[in-house]
């Protein structure tokens, strides 16, 4: 294997794949970055086994030459050393060449490194992209729907399946659901796909992977292709492939758990409500569960209160835009409420309650692509 690449290009690309490399891996080969050259360019791969990132550097792009491939082949180099080395190389170009027994020479300007490489055969095999079974979504929309759901995944390993976001693809629609069993976030979005029959009922993507994916995506309207394979999901943006393993097991059917009726409904300004809860929670944080209490009042206002025996009490009054139904006193976690309100992306939110011990549902007043459900806190 031999190629010559612009140093800056190489540094950038290595940095991209380094995002997937972890020093705490039990699989020795994953401490390395895989480099593969072929006629049309160079591919770098990094992986911590949960996620893998593949970066492709084409020989030529937009009439600009990035890399010169002299000999195809592949090698795995220790990620920590390789990334540090390329950052500090003196020349504007870097030549990488592999010799016998995986000996690898890196040359740039006046400097020459000889590294012991590892056998690329040892590196995990990532699934190949199947072009026919993919769907696409705009990068910025993808980031939004990750943001609107991933915060609600469970952080506890007691029910591992809940540490992921469940993606359900049916009839050109993607439905994302996340719950830690105390609250639930769901978001629906239309996707583009080459075939109408595309159906994936139970794809559970680890929340951590989606958070990482979100970091490497641009806020652009460019399409991201998504392919779901036997055990991985992969996201393909320009010159970058992001793989994530999927969670094993069946995601619980949450659709039946979301109440459809309501006894009390209110419309309230998202921002005002959020700020009121935020203030009330200053003291609530002291209480162990960060609990605030919402009480309906007679003048169309609601009172948010919190009482922390060690610190004191707080009362906040917020006017509702509209209010219908029974009076209500309900306690809930201020954190969950704020988390939900922060991702609603709407100026007014509709909240539907069905009782003090039942989940309540938040939706934007003008649409139902987002649904947030919160379980109340029981007081004694």
């Amino acid at each position, binding site marked *: 294997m031999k190629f010559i690449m612009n140093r800056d290009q190489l540094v950038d690309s290595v940095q991209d794949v380094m995002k997937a490399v972890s020093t705490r891996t039990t699989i*020795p080969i994953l401490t390395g970055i895989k480099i593969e050259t072929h006629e049309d360019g160079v591919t770098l791969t990094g992986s911590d086994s949960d996620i893998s990132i593949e970066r492709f550097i084409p020989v030529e792009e937009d009439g600009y030459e990035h890399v010169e491939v002299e000999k195809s082949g592949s090698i795995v180099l220790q990620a920590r050393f390789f990334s540090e080395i390329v950052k500090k190389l003196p020349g504007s170009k870097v030549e990488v060449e592999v010799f016998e027994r995986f000996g690898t020479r890196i040359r740039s300007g006046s400097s020459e490194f000889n590294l012991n490489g590892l056998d690329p055969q040892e590196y995990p095999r990532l699934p190949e992209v199947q072009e026919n079974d993919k769907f696409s979504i705009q990068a910025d929309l993808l980031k939004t729907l990750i943001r609107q759901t991933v915060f609600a995944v469970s952080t506890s390993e007691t029910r591992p399946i809940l540490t992921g976001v469940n993606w359900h693809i049916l009839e050109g629609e993607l439905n994302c659901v996340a719950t830690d069993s105390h609250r639930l976030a769901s978001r629906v979005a239309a996707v583009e796909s080459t075939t109408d029959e595309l159906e994936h009922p139970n794809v559970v993507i680890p929340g951590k992977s989606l958070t990482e994916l979100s970091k490497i995506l641009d806020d652009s309207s460019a399409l991201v292709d998504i392919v779901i394979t*036997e055990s991985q999901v992969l996201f393909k943006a320009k010159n970058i492939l992001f793989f994530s393993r999927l969670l094993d097991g069946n995601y619980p059917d949450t659709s039946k758990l979301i109440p459809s009726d309501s006894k009390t409904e209110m419309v309230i300004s998202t921002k005002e409500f959020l700020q009121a809860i935020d203030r009330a929670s200053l003291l609530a944080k002291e209480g162990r569960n960060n609990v605030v209490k919402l009480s309906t009042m007679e003048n169309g206002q609601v009172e948010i209160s919190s009482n922390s025996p060690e610190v004191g009490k707080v009362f906040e009054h917020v006017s509702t835009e509209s209010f219908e139904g029974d009076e209500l006193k309900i306690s809930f976690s201020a954190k969950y409420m704020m988390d939900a309100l922060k991702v609603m992306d709407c100026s007014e939110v509709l909240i539907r309650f069905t009782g003090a011990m039942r989940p309540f549902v938040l939706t934007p007043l003008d649409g139902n692509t987002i649904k947030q459900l919160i379980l109340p806190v029981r007081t004694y």
Partner: protein
Amino acid sequence: MNWNTLADRQPYVVKLLTNSLKKDRLAHAYLFKGNKGTGKRKISIHLAKAYFCRVKKDSEPCGECPDCKRIDSGNHPDVHFVAPEGQSIKIEQIRQLQKEFSYLGLESKSKAYILEHADRMTSQAANSLLKFLEEPGQETIAVLLTENPQQLLDTIRSRCQILTFAPQSQRKLIESLTEENYPVQLARTAAALTNDQAEAEEYLNDEWFVQARKNVLKLGEELFERPQRALLALHEHWNPHFKEKQQVEIGLDLLLILYKDVFLTQLEEEHSIVYNDQQNILSVQALQSSQSRVRTQMLHILEAKRRLNANMNLQLLMEQLVLRLQEG
């Protein structure tokens, strides 16, 4: 290596596994039990290869493909080995495994894990493992290896298919060791400690082991002939040589063999004696002591071995043992 060569030593186990492979009816979890050196690990690795190899013929993995090779090198992303870290297999290790197994495999849906010395799981780790033995993933196989199956939770044992590994014949091992030009006395000693040839050779190549045998015999002699000086002998011959826990464990095994040899002499089973260059001492001791006394002494040594695993202070442990051996 292939199933055939493995079947030489473990015909029953190999037959069962290859049959299940052919019928594609592997169990979710196996418990391999058998003495050290009976090939549990080798067979578990071969089983993993047979499970993952995509070009296997019948039940025989090719041994050449990336799957097979990476199982050997520990780089296969969907095959996980867990062994005690220090004293025990810790909850963090099982948690890591659990996390790994809450995911689908990296390359396919299949996953495998091999747990060495499964009996050394902390009770918390064992309980945690139990949870996912109860709900195995679709295409997961677990292989638990142990020399002490009785120390595993019943609930774990009952969820595994148990395969018993036959001990390798000592005579065969001694023969092949002497063929390799190892002195017969030492070969007999090493073969008494392990059934595994490679491990026996490792002992025999270690100067420490040769000296260990001498020191144990020296201590034995003192215990037999000048019991009042035994504590002194302990400090002179034992403590300087047996410093690490594992060394003490070998020392205790060697000492146990000595008492066993006395017992065998009493039973007139001289052909089974390990230290047969010590027959003079052995027969004197066999006459002077009673069978029940020797049996009690052997139990004391076994008890000391058990305490060793409970992490007792090594010197104290040996002093107590020597005092008990004096008392009988």
